[in-house]
């Protein structure tokens, strides 16, 4: 940037005399300073800040990428663990279900067996009951017949003598009580 200014100075000084014109230099310096100031304010500073921002953005972007990567890994791990756990649990549940089902089945079959035997016992009881009822009926009937026959026979067959003897013993019995 300084080169054109020097060239300009050189070019301007060539026709007249070779030397340093102080005021021109001063003006040049002042104008240069103004230009530099203007440039700095309106061009360089925004550019610098923009660059800074960019750098920051890139940095954060990179960091984010790293984080995401880590997270991804963690999630992967986790999902693996969950899957494993789920597997284990599933097998446990299945195991338990199987066990319960087996127990239930056992219980049911036992109950059924018990019920069947109970039914058998009940049926036997009913039969036994019927038998006993019949026997009791037969017994009363036989007893009735025995008594009725005995009455008839005794009424007809007992002689007066027999009765007299029986009465005598009955009288003795009564006198003694």
């Amino acid at each position, binding site marked *: 940037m300084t080169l054109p200014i020097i060239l300009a100075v050189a070019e301007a000084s060539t026709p007249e005399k070779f030397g340093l014109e102080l005021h021109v230099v001063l003006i040049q310096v002042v104008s240069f300073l103004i230009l530099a100031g203007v440039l700095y304010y309106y061009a360089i500073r925004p550019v610098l800040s923009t660059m800074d921002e960019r750098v920051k953005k890139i940095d954060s972007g990179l960091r984010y990428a790293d984080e995401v990567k880590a997270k991804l890994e963690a999630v992967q791990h986790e999902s693996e663990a969950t899957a494993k756990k789920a597997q284990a649990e599933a097998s446990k549940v299945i195991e338990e279900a199987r066990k319960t089902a087996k127990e239930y089945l056992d219980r049911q079959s036992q109950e059924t067996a018990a019920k069947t035997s109970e039914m058998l016992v009940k049926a036997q*009881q009913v039969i036994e*009951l019927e038998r006993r009822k019949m*026997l009791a009926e*037969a*017994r009363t009937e*036989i007893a009735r017949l025995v008594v009725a026959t005995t009455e008839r026979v005794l009424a007809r067959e007992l002689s007066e003598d027999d009765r007299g003897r029986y009465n005598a013993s*009955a009288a003795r*019995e009564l006198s003694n*009580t």
Partner: protein
Amino acid sequence: MSTVLEQIEQQIAKLSSKAVKKNTGNIRTIADGVAKIDGLSDVMYNEMVQFPGGAIGIALNLEETEVGCVILGDISKLKEGDEVTTTGKLLSVPVGKALLGRTVDALGNPVDGKGPIDSKEAYPVERIAPGIIVRKSVSQPLFTGIMAIDSMIPIGRGQRELIIGDRGTGKTTITIDTIINQAKINKVGLASGDKAFRPVYSIYVAIGQKNSNIVRTIAALEAAGALEFTVIVSAPAADNPANQYLAPYSGAAIGEWFMENGMDALIVYDDLSKHAVAYRQISLILKRPSGREAYPGDVFYLHSRLLERAARLEGKGSLTALPIIETLAGDVSAYIPTNVISITDGQIFLETDLFNQGIRPAVSVGLSVSRVGSAAQIKATKQVGGKLKGELAQFRELAAFAQFGSDLDAKTKAQLERGGRIVELFKQPAFAPLPIELQVSVLFAMQKGFFDPIELKKVVEAASSLKAFFTTRKDALLAEIRTKAALDKDLEAKLQAACEEWKSSFAA
């Protein structure tokens, strides 16, 4: 056939030619099941007398010139002038284990068509109740299987707890539940082979009931497998009043045999109102002076001497009585209800309103008490249900109060919510008694607030799911509660864990 002949031969061999002395009288009048008899100069009060044709009677009125007898059995063949003889015996009924599973009438004769009862002993129907010295205070629980009763109105072995309420409030159901629960406990206890286990045998006395009801009761007991531990004494409405009057005493005699022989028994009198009515009928026909509501003067003694026979005896067994009284329009201040309330050790009051609201069993917590109190509770129930009665009473009070205003503070709201849940939890279907360990678990879950987040309408569903969870998955835990009968730290932790497990499964 040969056995029949042998038996007859034996009887013939037993015959002796000894003279027999009899004291006799003649029927002067006979009406309404009561006979007035001339003669019978040797008859004793309450003695059994023999009528022709096999009917027997009891001498209830010994007057100057005649004897008033109630006749048990068929009176259609008796007529004026028939000869009546004394027997020298008090009326007695067969007793013993042979009666279990059987249905008998007031005299102990089988009426179930299962043939004769093979019993070796007989006890007199009327018996003086055990005295002071032989009694022991009630301290062993008798679980009814009904959560509202076992947790708040506990019944002990040897206690007399009245069940009182209007018709159709589930009085009989409570007693049937109790009998079924005894059978269940007996089965578990006998299967465990524990030597110290004492089974409870039940006696159900049906007085003045419809035969169809008795049949239904028997069917319910049989379906639940409880009939083998139960004796049913039946004096239906069609029986003459003398049989209805005697049936509870016969039942008590059957129960006393268990008590005297070191066993525990439970007797249900269903119901004593009809018993009092039957006795009133007999007394009026016998021309005894009548008093309030036309009941005779000794109607208090009628029930007191019956219920006093329930006791727990030192060194022997116990007899627990659950008499039932039917009230009219919830009037507990009528004659018979007040009498029986004053005789018994507490009452379970059932309300029509609650029943209609769907709260079944319709136990009115405020009016029901058990004078034996917590002496007849296991420690675990006390731990989880000790404050229930107070909480429920508070709830009822608040519920009535809350109807007026809608702005309630948080504490009141919480109390209302909790109370509503307790009421829901106590709902229980008929003939499904809950074992005590399950009751403890449900109450524990309630106390620990597991039901609080559940919508009120879903509490019943949640409770049944919890019960199912415990019975199917936590059998071992239930058994531990049952054997330990108290909740220690370890058990509590286990219960808490189990409830957590259930909660996740129920919410899911």
